[in-house]
């Protein structure tokens, strides 16, 4: 009896709470279909518009949104691919190989994962200006600073979870460390690799400060486009 009441109260809290979280998303979606006069005007607070329109979406297409989206997509993909590759190698070395200076390296990776891009944006800007790399896809290089340490960190945890026995039996069968890595560790840690790739992709896709400073030509990225609007 009491339990049922608690359950009901609990359900109400969750629904209310989700509404608050999701409300901005719903509101902006509804607004995007309203004509200009109803966005800023007496009827701005009506939930549904009587004269729903897709004119804003048409304006987006006219303003070359696809070009910006393409750039965002290319940069995010390039960064995701090379960061995942580089991070996998590094994480495997940290998780499974024995060599001098390993702990120091792990400490450096952990420490750098705490540095936000704010610290390095000035010097990177200088270097980019000197090399003439502004407004180019080279921006994916500095993006590895926000994504690489996190990717390494995630992959180390996943690689360490792969049972050691699998590796040992492979080495008894005569497989080299390299072969073990490619044939055993990578397939078994695939979910972890996907997780880190997704997190990398989202991180790059959403990054703002570097793309703001390293792209003096606006119109380059979808996110800058939004800022310009």
């Amino acid at each position, binding site marked *: 009896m009491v339990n049922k009441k608690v359950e009901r109260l*609990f*359900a109400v*809290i*969750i629904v209310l*709470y*989700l509404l608050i*979280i*999701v409300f*901005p*998303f719903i*509101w*902006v979606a509804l*607004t995007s279909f309203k004509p200009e006069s109803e*966005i800023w*005007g007496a009827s*701005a*607070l009506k939930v549904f518009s009587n004269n729903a329109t897709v004119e804003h979406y048409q304006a987006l297409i006219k303003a070359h949104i696809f070009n910006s989206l393409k750039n965002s997509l290319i940069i995010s993909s390039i960064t995701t691919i090379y960061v995942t590759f*580089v991070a996998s*190698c*590094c994480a*495997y*070395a940290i998780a499974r*190989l*024995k*060599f*001098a200076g*390993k702990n120091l*390296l792990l400490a*450096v*990776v952990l420490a*750098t994962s*705490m*540095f*936000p891009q*704010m*610290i*390095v*944006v*000035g*010097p*990177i800007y*200088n*270097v980019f*200006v000197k090399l003439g790399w502004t407004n180019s896809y080279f921006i994916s*290089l500095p993006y*590895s*600073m926000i994504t*690489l*340490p996190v990717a390494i960190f995630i992959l180390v945890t996943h690689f360490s979870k792969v049972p050691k026995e699998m590796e040992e039996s492979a080495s008894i069968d005569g497989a080299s*460390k*390299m072969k073990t890595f490619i044939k055993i560790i990578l397939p078994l840690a695939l979910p972890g690799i996907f997780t880190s790739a997704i997190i990398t992709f*989202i991180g790059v*896709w*959403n990054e*703002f*400060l570097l793309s703001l*400073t390293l792209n003096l030509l606006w119109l380059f990225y979808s*996110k800058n486009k*939004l*800022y310009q609007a």
Partner: protein
Amino acid sequence: MSQKNSLKRAEARLGFIFILPSLILILSIIIYPLCYNIYLSFHKVALNPLKTPKFIGFSNYLTLFSDGEFLKSLMLTFLYVIITVATSTTVGLLVALLMNRKFKGRGIARSLVILPYVAPVISLVFVWQYMFNGIYGVVNYAAVDKLQLFNAAPAWFDHPVLSMALVILFDTWRVFPYSFMMILAALQAIDESLYEAAMIDGAGAWKQFWAITFPEILPVISSLVVLRAIWNFYKFDDVYLLTKQVPIMGVYLYQTAFSVYDFGLAAAITVALFIIVMTFVLFVRRKVNRI
């Protein structure tokens, strides 16, 4: 024996080759700019990138610490960090506890919760600016016209205190899903039998939380607090985009470097901030190690 040694050497060589790309990247895009910043902070940097910077000693640092704006900004940043870390971690913890129970539609609810964290900041800022707009915003409509919480429509983006409240609210809403995900993962890893034992001993929900749940998730919470504090200490994007009334450190730094184009001074700020954060990290590490 010698074969074992050569195997070991081969392993070390492979390890070195494997870490080399990461090492080069970290050195060139993190460590090098960091050192370059330290170098620049002692120089007067000309606007023309071809001119060599002029050595001026500690002059940039003296300018910095005698600038009232900098000290004000520093205090504001501390306030911002303390409040947002507290709110985002608390909300994340509460939601994680809520969502750790079994109920219908839990999967959907969990994915909805992380929506603010995965959407691009800039688009979220636009939504908030529209929602908090003084005249046409839905928030003022609800708070002033319907609930009458305020006498006059509050100007969310122009009033210093209200803007501060707004950026704190925004940051909490945006980043609590991160705390939520981390804490939820820790909650799911707690051994069920601990609760069963507690139940047999007659411990209520409140007692169970403090005796079992809290100690189990404490490591996650402490690392969340440290990371969030560092990240928010350098917060730039959403505050810069939302309002011009909250000049926290990231905004102050950006304006010095890219509006005034004083890279020497900006480098000095970076170094000063870096020292503050490193001191904080070392202090926390020692505290945590003692526990």
